[in-house]
């Protein structure tokens, strides 16, 4: 059930250059949260009226917290980065649909593709898939070494390789280069990707026709709950636009064939 939760900051750490991990405790974990869902966060500064969407990076039901991981890119994230322990935050969620995985066979081979701050929702997904016994290969791309985060944490769940745009760490190249050079010997039952639009376009092209290749799309949002039509995408089925998909309620996770990115 979507609610406007008041969550308490129990921790905030800078996990890489300009990238923060925020731990938020409160009642939001009492209802089920799917991996890939997101929250819409009220910036704790009354000058800003639009909330900011962030993927849910981790759900801990036992201890009653969620984690968000975000990069400081503008005013809103700048303000979030200043929050310290004990501060409260209004968080609307959980929103959207998560990554589908009910179709997976036992011990399925799965490829996880994460680019930069697209990684957060894939962490929670990987954690769950791993505990369900699936075999994960994980390709992570970052702009450079300073911006790498969660490499070790992802490695817990499967074979993890990293590329950087500038070659300052791991393979120099794009995530598609990384996949082409390292992840071609298996045929994966499912591919889950999240990252900048370029990455998602490349993944969509690369895995064209794959029955279970999913991306989590980004869009400028306002409401996050389907009432404003800010976040629509054309569907591949009907480019006239008469039908369309809202990233906030129909997504953010789509099959790569479903929408025009």
């Amino acid at each position: 059930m979507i609610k406007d939760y008041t969550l308490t900051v129990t921790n905030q750490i800078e996990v890489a250059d300009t990238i923060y991990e925020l731990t938020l405790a409160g009642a939001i974990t009492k209802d089920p949260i799917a991996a890939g869902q997101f929250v819409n966060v009220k910036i704790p500064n009354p000058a800003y009226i639009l909330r900011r969407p962030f993927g849910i990076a981790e759900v801990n039901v036992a201890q009653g917290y969620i984690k968000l991981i975000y990069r400081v890119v503008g005013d809103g994230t700048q303000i979030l980065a200043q929050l310290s322990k004990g501060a409260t935050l209004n968080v609307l969620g959980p929103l959207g649909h998560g990554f589908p995985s009910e179709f997976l066979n036992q011990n399925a081979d799965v490829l996880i593709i994460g680019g930069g701050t697209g990684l957060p929702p894939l962490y929670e997904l990987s954690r769950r898939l791993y505990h369900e016994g699936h075999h994960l290969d994980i390709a992570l791309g970052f702009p450079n070494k300073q911006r790498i985060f969660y490499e070790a944490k992802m490695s817990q769940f499967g074979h993890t390789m990293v590329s950087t745009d500038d070659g300052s760490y791991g393979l120099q190249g794009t995530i598609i280069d990384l996949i082409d050079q390292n992840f071609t010997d298996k045929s994966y039952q499912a591919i889950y990707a999240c990252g900048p639009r370029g990455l998602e376009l490349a993944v969509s092209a690369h895995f064209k026709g794959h029955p279970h290749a999913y991306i989590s799309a980004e869009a400028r949002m306002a409401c996050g709950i389907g009432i404003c039509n800010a976040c629509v995408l054309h569907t591949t089925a009907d480019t006239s636009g008469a039908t369309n998909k809202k990233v906030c309620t129909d997504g953010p996770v789509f099959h790569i064939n479903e929408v025009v990115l």
Partner: protein
Amino acid sequence: MTTLGVQLPGLDLKNPIMPASGCCGFGEELGNLYDLNQLGAIMIKAATSKPRFGNPTPRVAETPQGMLNAIGLQNPGVATIVAEKIPKLHAKFKDLPIIANVAGSAQADYVAVCDQISRAPGVSAIELNISCPNVAHGGMEFGVDPTAAFELTKACVNVSAVPIYVKLSPNVTDIREIAKAVAMAQPAGFTLINTLVGMRFDLTTRQAILANQTGGLSGPAVLPVALRLIHQVRSVCDLPIIGMGGVTCAEDVLEMIIAGADAVAIGTANLTDPFACPEIITALPAVMAKYHISSIESLIHERKGKLVK
């Protein structure tokens, strides 16, 4: 007379609060979050004769205490709205008066949509949107020209089965001229304001943030402009006004009624907080008590007594 109730042509409102068009879809999503029967009414998203995808994205941008939108009247078209969206809403929330928002790019479209949608069960009134700033043709073109606005209103009033409230544009030199012209076509009332035209630019790309370049400014930033325009229209005309523009709390609602409104719609505030409308309704009685306002109707009467034309 209840404390919060307001009677307007076609609209028996249990309270003066309704979500504004474009900020509540067709009621489906908000209806999953709270009981919409609590609302005075609901103003559903614009309907046009054909389905519309609307403008390319990005469609929204933030501004100080406001936002720009350039949705571009995205909607599934009047046929689907009448066949699916309205029946679904009406079936779930029997007590909720529905105000259908009608837009178009030519007078004939508006007339056809009014004709059709005004006959849908559950539709209590029409909001005639002659003021959308986000479409290339129609919309605001009508709202800024007294003659066109009069003609269009008259044609729609003639064909509609329910009262028509004409939604005026704030993007005009003198809204009184437009209001007076429209009033001659004898609509049931007015709704105002639609959004102010604005822009934002991205410093990195040096381009407009919105794909449509310009968008409509809404939210608290526009409140003083909305209050002025409502007051101006009120000063030349006795017709009911559903006011909107930047309202976020019970105090704003009362201020808008003092300015000249008879009921108040909440737009952008729903996007910041989907529970904004029920929260405002809940807050109203205590705030009214603080300012010695015994009922919304009494505040409207008090204003009528005072108003110097």
